[in-house]
């Protein structure tokens, strides 16, 4: 507890400090390349029958929304006087963003990554190493994201005096879910201004994929008070909800406690944590950020699921119709556009959080894409 209490205190002070916010805004603009565009996807709109806008987080430096949070936390780590950074990663997007931020500030960086993910996300492993990070494959448990997080926590408790643990998702112990959300709300704040400028109205629906849920909460949060804006999170249904091989903690899990957070979890009858399954390494987490569990319980947001096959189809469709290769994670949100479009109608405005780009996924999806034709 003392390390997370110290973090909570340091974050509260940084958040209230204008100098900190100004420094962060400067890096987001000049280094990350914000604001990211809000782009009207004409052909996807025609295809699905609604006005579909893409919030282009994949155009950020490092290719995903993960860098927003990393810039915030690395500045916090520096303020706290920490000299070593550790992180966990699933798809490698957060690992790459962390390694990038560490390179920028000359801080040593260790990234824990499940051995299974090291294999299926080879390009990102190479990028992290190129950026000077040490990638430690984690063999324990299911050798995916949750095990990487276990290992990072073990490292942190052993080296807490000099080490900052940079969590990439809206999960883990307080204050991480709140802090990660705060750093990701730049997505929703920009979207709000951009859509008002472009359409003169708020969107009818927001759609984003949900693993731990950081890009979704970042997009949703500035719209929570706008009752007319429907919120859709899309979880990974893997091989199908009935197969039991999925990563949909809200749609297929029960409340529990893991990694210091009380939320929905994939677990067996004895409370043992189950392995999550998804073609997308970034959604392969058996829990979900606690704020999403709350949004679902109060009925503010709805959570759909997309299978591996649906995500692959949407992945290919987005590439062909818009010339954008999305991350497999984001493809889960794209896969539910028809459903959301049907609800809002032809004149309805939908903003989809395109959280990352898909270059990293090409090698792993190639054989399955060929089967899809």
């Amino acid at each position, binding site marked *: *507890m*003392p*390390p997370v209490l110290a973090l909570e205190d340091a974050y509260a002070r940084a958040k209230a400090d204008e100098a900190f916010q100004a420094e962060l805004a400067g890096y987001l603009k000049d280094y990350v390349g914000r604001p990211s565009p809000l782009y009207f996807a004409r052909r996807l709109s025609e295809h699905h029958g609604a006005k579909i806008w893409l919030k282009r987080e994949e155009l950020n430096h490092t290719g995903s929304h993960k860098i927003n949070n990393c810039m915030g936390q690395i500045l916090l780590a520096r303020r706290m006087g920490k000299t070593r950074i550790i992180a966990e990663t699933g798809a490698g997007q957060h690992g790459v963003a962390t390694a990038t931020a560490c390179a920028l500030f000359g801080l040593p960086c260790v990234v824990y990554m499940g051995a299974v993910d090291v294999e299926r996300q080879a390009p990102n492993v190479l990028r992290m190493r190129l950026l000077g990070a040490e990638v430690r494959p984690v063999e*324990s*448990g299911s050798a995916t994201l*949750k*095990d990487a*997080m*276990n290992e990072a*926590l*073990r490292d942190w*408790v*052993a*080296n*807490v*005096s000099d080490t900052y643990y940079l969590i990439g998702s809206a999960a883990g112990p307080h204050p991480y879910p709140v802090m990660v959300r705060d750093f990701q709300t730049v997505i929703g704040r920009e979207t709000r201004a951009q859509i008002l400028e472009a359409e003169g109205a708020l969107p009818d629906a927001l759609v984003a994929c949900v693993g731990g849920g950081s890009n979704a909460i970042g997009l949703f949060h500035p719209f929570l008070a706008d009752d007319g804006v429907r919120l859709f999170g899309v979880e990974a249904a893997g091989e199908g909800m009935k197969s039991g091989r999925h990563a949909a903690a809200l749609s297929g899990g029960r409340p*529990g*406690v*893991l*990694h*210091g957070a009380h939320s929905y*979890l994939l*677990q067996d*009858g*004895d*409370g*043992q*944590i*189950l392995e999550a399954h998804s073609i997308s390494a970034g959604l392969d987490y058996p829990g979900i950020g606690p704020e999403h569990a709350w949004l679902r319980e109060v009925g503010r947001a709805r959570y759909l699921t997309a299978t591996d096959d649906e995500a692959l189809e949407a992945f290919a469709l987005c590439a062909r119709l818009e010339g954008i290769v999305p991350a497999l994670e984001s493809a889960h949100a794209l896969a539910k556009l028809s459903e959301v479009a049907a609800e809002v109608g032809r004149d309805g405005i939908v903003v989809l959080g395109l959280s990352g780009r898909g270059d990293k996924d090409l090698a792993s999806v190639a054989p399955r894409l060929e089967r899809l034709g």
Partner: protein
Amino acid sequence: MSIARIEARFAALAREGRAAFAPYVVAGDPDAETAWRILEGLPGAGADLIELGLPFSDPMADGPTIQRGAARALAAGMDTAGVLALMHRFRTSDTSTPVVLMGYYNPILNCGLDAFAATAADAGVDGLIVVDLPPEEADPLADALGARDLALIRLATPTTDEARLAIVAHRSAGFVYFVSVTGVTGVKEADAATIATQVALARAATRLPVAVGFGIRTAQRAAEIARIADGVVVGSALVEEISQSLALNRDPAPKVLDTVATMAQAVRSARTSG
């Protein structure tokens, strides 16, 4: 019994002028039958108190050795009901050795806190250590356990300062478990002088006995800790014996009980010889 059984044991040892030796094993490691023979043999080998690990799929406070033990137990089919069945059987032959379960919160929460407390009390469990439940969040469990006279044993670490020790000590029962290293089980070793200072701080914050664990791997080390604390917990060194026996295709039970006997002897003679 329950809290009273823990108190009686520490009081008796205080009269003898020595520390408690508390071995930790994972319930069901490597399988229910072998684990039973180990558990049954512990008091005879010199265990004054037993810490029985509830296996969990994601033991983030444990080093590789205990992770492997928990994985073996789960793979062999152990679950919370199985652990309590093991305890029931233990109490048919031993009613004086306190047993505390040590585990993670989710399987306990999953049972329902009151239901867990009731079945644990029925099975003859005396207390519970939940490594991923901070005192700020522990009141519901403390209430449930308290209603059955079971102790919720709190953890203190080298990062626990005096102000926080007061929070830890509040509502603590049975004993206070001092984690002697910043880190996971069975990896690092802190120096005895530092531990002595920290144990003194913990003693100032609580009237309860203070047991020390994490990073005690040898009999010599156990004896050193026995001179400064009220209890000495050894876990990874025992679970490692199981791993090694399995690798050699040997029955782990005799080897584990031999090691327990050697360490218990070292703890017993620590204060007279030192």
